[in-house]
């Protein structure tokens, strides 16, 4: 019976730790881009990309960069990182495989 209490307690602790983990930067890329007041908007980035032939599912901020999920003009379904001030392309990857990294 003692063991079952220990197991239940450790399961509860683990579950709480797992579920309460805060939204964190994924660490795939980070940008030192200064205060957000100096950033270009995500709408502008998306508009630029669409003009270049991208299809966009979603975008957000991750690690101080803009992160975009979508399809490249070449037809690759990717997640891509852009600098929020210069909107320069920094990293493009597909399910963990890097397709482009800014040299």
């Amino acid at each position, binding site marked *: 019976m003692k063991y079952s209490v220990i*197991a239940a307690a450790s399961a509860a602790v*683990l579950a709480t730790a797992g579920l309460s*983990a805060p939204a964190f930067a994924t660490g*795939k890329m980070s940008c030192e881009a200064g205060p957000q007041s100096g950033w270009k908007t995500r709408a502008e980035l998306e508009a630029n990309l669409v003009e270049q032939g991208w299809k966009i599912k979603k975008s957000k901020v991750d690690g101080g960069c803009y992160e975009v999920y979508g*399809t490249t003009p070449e037809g690759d379904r990717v997640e891509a990182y852009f600098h929020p001030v210069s909107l320069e392309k920094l990293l493009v990857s597909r*399910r*963990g495989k890097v397709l482009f990294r800014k040299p």
Partner: protein
Amino acid sequence: MLDQHASKTHDTAMSFLRKLNSLPVLWILLSLPGLFMVRGYWVGDIIAMDLLHPTGEFSARFMIIALFTTPFSVIFGNRPWVGWFLKRRRTFGLAAFGYGVLHLVFYIIDMEALKPILAEFWAPGIWTGWAALLLFVPLAITSNDASMRRLKRGWKRLQRLVYFAALLTLAHWLLIHDGVGGALAHFVPLALLELWRIIIIYRQRNNKTAQHETLQTP
């Protein structure tokens, strides 16, 4: 008179509770999260990409609950609540498959075309998911009494594929998702229970051998 009335109320309450504890009600409960997800997608509140995580998580969650049953019965023996789980194992297993299929449907909707699906097929985080779901197909097809009768002892052997499916699911989750917290919160309790089950079975076996040896000594 009053007593009769009270016992009648009691009976009604009991039969209501029995109904609430029935398999059809469990089916409805287990499908509710999925119905909300499909509805959310339908009315445009949420995109397919954002439904990949919740559908996959519910699939893994129900598979893990189904898998709890055997360690529970080895560790705690023949108790009413263990029996409760045993009676519902198939329901949880089929629900896991259902959410796995929903997961695949939203994946296909999200990817939009065959070409990008094939392009990423061999990414470690992707093929593990395909393999896990593929293993689930024969398990789901044979999750009925007729198959149990027809396959006899082979049924149990076939259903043991679920352990491979579980390992593939864990690998898929760890590889595809940013952060390991969610996957571990689900799989560590299962791993602990399985470990405990193995220890108990190992001990029982040792005890039996020891007894056997004692008996043989003249």
